[in-house]
């Protein structure tokens, strides 16, 4: 995959330290273009205006959690088809099954390794494109 084929990401994460490290890893190590915001409400606004290729969504957030945010994104014309990956410490099999059933394309478990994160996102994106019949 060339860098030009990398998706533009919207990262939604309420923990400022985790947000900063994730952005650093994805931009500086992975070469992704990353937009970041801290809660579900802001994510709805930014997803509509930025139209990212992929949204990385924290599950546990104050106010609107990841599941509610996903549901609302799916109801908006501008964002309903944007693939979503949950990034979460909720990694019991029943929890991850629920997230996938909601329509997430994959799950990145927390804590994540900053070096491995961009590699994992590239794999997820490549698989998504292949599944959707796109170019990988």
């Amino acid at each position, binding site marked *: 995959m060339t860098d030009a084929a990398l998706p533009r990401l919207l990262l939604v994460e309420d923990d400022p*330290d*985790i947000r900063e490290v994730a952005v650093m890893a994805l931009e*500086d190590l992975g070469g992704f273009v990353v937009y970041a915001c801290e809660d579900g409400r802001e994510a709805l606004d930014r997803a509509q205006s930025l139209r990212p290729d992929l949204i990385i969504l924290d599950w546990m957030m104050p106010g609107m959690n990841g599941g509610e945010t996903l549901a609302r994104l799916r109801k908006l014309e501008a964002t309903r088809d944007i693939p979503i990956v949950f990034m979460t410490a909720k990694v019991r099999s029943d929890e991850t099954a629920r997230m996938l059933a909601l329509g997430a394309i994959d799950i990145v478990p*927390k*804590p994540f390794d*900053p*070096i491995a994160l961009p590699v994992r996102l590239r794999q997820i994106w490549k698989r998504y494109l292949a599944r959707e019949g796109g170019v990988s």
Partner: protein
Amino acid sequence: MNAPREIQVKFDDVRSGYLTRTKTVRARLEKLADLLKTGGDEETIEEIEEIVHRIAGSAGTFGLSKIGEQAARAERAALALRRGKASRSELAVAVKKLSAVIGTVK
């Protein structure tokens, strides 16, 4: 983290801030554990769940695996309490241990 020097410096800076903020939570964890031992209400348990979940999901990213592992144990103790399979004092012990582990990291 093994990354180019410039990125490593940035990472170390964020890690330092993270550790400082995590250490400031210790006093609150101690207080919440004490509240649990004397009963504690639903809000006490919810606050513990929120704190330990956040730490369990983040400490490992900064290479603080011992903190992350103890936070995960405390999170499991909270879940067990919810399911009636652990007592409040068991959760309090797990929370106190987490506080102690955080205190040992420099």
